[in-house]
């Protein structure tokens, strides 16, 4: 099936010479929830703004919903929640939805019904006739999300949707995302918070300093970080035990952790681990537990950031408005 978003070699150099994107390739399949993960200043918002025609790419090849990036008419089928958005304070919640719905080309008759339905969805019906100026950050975020759904979009692009939202709100938003997925929409989500993505995303990409360093399902990404952790009961000479295990399995990279008394073995095959158990038991150690484990998204993220190091100073200098 044709990808919802398929872009290659996207580059953006801002005036002022910030090289914000350095050749980004992404492919997002229809119906998936895709998470773009990266530290502040990585270029996530820049990429999203290019897709939404808010800024012009320096270089960009690819399509969104089958149309070239930059085509205005495609946007009628896309919903977008910008980062740090500011709705006019003089509008009421329902008016915001009506206005942005109209801007997306939704006929008047549908707008009223849809607005009521969406306010219900984001649990803001009680606030429909209150001015946005009186809303809290979390409420604005909810209304913003509703606004992005007014045109019944095939693709929903959300830039830091849980920014400033309390834990209950975060859970609500996650549920809404899952519901959107059930309805067959594609969601492109953008965040610097890891836990959110892990819970809802089918696939993620990690972006650091303007480049996507890894891309795939969370399983795929963490595949080669599978390992076993053997914890010993009152170990005697843990370091030596670790060395012996490495020798027995003839592998490198066995690590020991004194505080917990554990030995980490970078292998995913349970059959091979038996040798380690034998060796430890032969050495008179008592095994308390054996756990299969893999790196969390967070570990992966940290290592991706660390790998990029400080090789490209300037790319992450904060810009006006700043990141929160």
């Amino acid at each position, binding site marked *: 099936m044709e990808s919802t978003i398929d872009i290659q070699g996207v580059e953006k150099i*801002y005036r002022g010479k910030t090289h914000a994107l350095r050749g980004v390739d992404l492919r997002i399949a229809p119906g998936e929830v895709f998470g773009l993960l990266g530290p502040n200043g990585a270029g996530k918002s820049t990429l999203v703004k290019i897709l939404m025609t808010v800024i012009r790419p320096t270089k960009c090849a690819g399509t969104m919903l089958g149309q070239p990036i930059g085509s*205005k008419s*495609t946007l009628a089928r896309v919903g977008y929640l910008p980062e740090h958005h500011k709705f006019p304070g003089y*509008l009421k919640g329902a008016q915001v939805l009506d*206005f942005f719905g*109209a*801007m997306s080309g939704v006929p008047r008759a549908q707008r009223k019904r849809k607005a009521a339905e969406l306010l219900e969805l984001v649990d803001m019906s009680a606030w429909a006739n209150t001015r946005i100026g009186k809303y809290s950050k979390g409420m604005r975020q909810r209304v913003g999300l509703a606004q992005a759904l007014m045109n019944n979009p095939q693709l929903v692009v959300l830039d830091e949707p849980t920014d400033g939202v309390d834990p209950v709100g975060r859970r609500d938003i996650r549920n809404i995302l899952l519901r959107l997925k059930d309805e067959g929409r594609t969601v492109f989500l953008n965040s610097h918070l890891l836990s959110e993505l892990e819970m809802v995303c089918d696939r993620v990409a990690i972006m650091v300093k303007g480049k996507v360093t890894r891309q795939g399902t969370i399983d795929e990404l963490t595949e080669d970080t599978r390992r076993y952790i053997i914890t010993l009961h009152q170990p005697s000479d843990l370091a030596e035990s670790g060395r012996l295990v490495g020798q027995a399995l003839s592998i490198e990279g066995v690590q020991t952790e004194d505080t917990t008394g554990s030995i980490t073995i970078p292998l995913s095959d349970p059959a091979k681990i038996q040798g380690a158990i034998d060796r430890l038991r032969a050495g008179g150690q008592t095994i308390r537990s054996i756990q299969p484990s893999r790196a969390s998204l967070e570990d992966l993220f940290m290592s991706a950031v660390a790998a990029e190091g400080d090789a490209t100073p300037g790319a992450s200098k904060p810009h006006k408005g700043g990141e929160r």
Partner: protein
Amino acid sequence: MIRVFSAMMIDSLRYLRSRFLFWIVLAMSAIAAAALFGTYSFTPTGMKILWFDPIENPMLAEDGVGREIFVSYIFNAYFLKFWLGWGAMILALISTASLIPDYISDGSVELTLSKPVRRPVLFLFKFISGLLFVLLQLSIGVGFAYIIIGIRFDQWMHGALLAIPLLTLQFVYLYAISALIAVLTRSTIASLLGTILIWFVISMVQFVSNTTLLQYEMQAATAQQNQAKIVELEAQIAEESRDPKPFERANLSSWTTTMEAAQKSADSIYPWVKTTARIELFVPKTGDLQKFISSKTKAPVTNEFAGLFMDFSSEEFRPANVDEETMRDANEAETIARKKVRKVGIVESITTSMLIVCLLLFLAIWRFTRRDY
């Protein structure tokens, strides 16, 4: 497109409605109209202001010839020029100065740029929506004055209604400047101050050009006046086929001197008239619109109005060494000149002004469409 247009207009109305200044200006228009047209009345023998003793003046009496002139002058000089043309216009600029900077501020502009509407269209609609403020203010203010004048004095100045589109057009001239500065700087203060500064410069240019033209026309009118007198007297003498009498000879020679002096003076001013007119070609001519309304409402020029209350040629006003006729002639020449100055080629004036407006808008749109937000 219509859907987007109406959504943006409604949004703008909500914006205006939420602004305190909008209501202030509206109230002030009503107060100005009530004060200027509701505080006096015409009696069989003159005019009565509030509770003060009536002013005896047959010209301003109920059926006096000056009554309509009086009202139309007050309307033009005070209500239109002073209040709507300056006061309300500045307040309108203040009220709408933030419209575009707010719209293109971070966090706000992304919301509409990401909609399936082209940027030039977004910008133009936003610009037009900024005109709603004055359009509403003028419709209500002028409409109110028109009705008060009609009802109280039974004087229906249909020409006054022209002020609604024409002063809106004046605002278009100014708002185009504001919009361009707004797009370039994204700052409300900069666009407001910049616009007022440029408006001041424009007004100066027009003032200089106007004054020069008035001087020229006054000299030309004087020359013409004297020539007419010479021609008339000579014709009379020729008809009676006689020699001019000594006092006629003296008159003829004095008129000729005056005529030649005035003509010479007019000729020397003429190049300046040309130059200032040429400079004026490159500014939006805000003043022309008001001149046009004045002539359409048959407003008197300043000295015609003053003439309602005083006789310039009477001894009271005339310096000792000037005779009555000279004084009357001078006054007449000025009236003719002022009326001439007020006659503007409105089509040409609007066309050249709009060309400048289009250029400003084009630059603004160009910047807006190319900018990264």
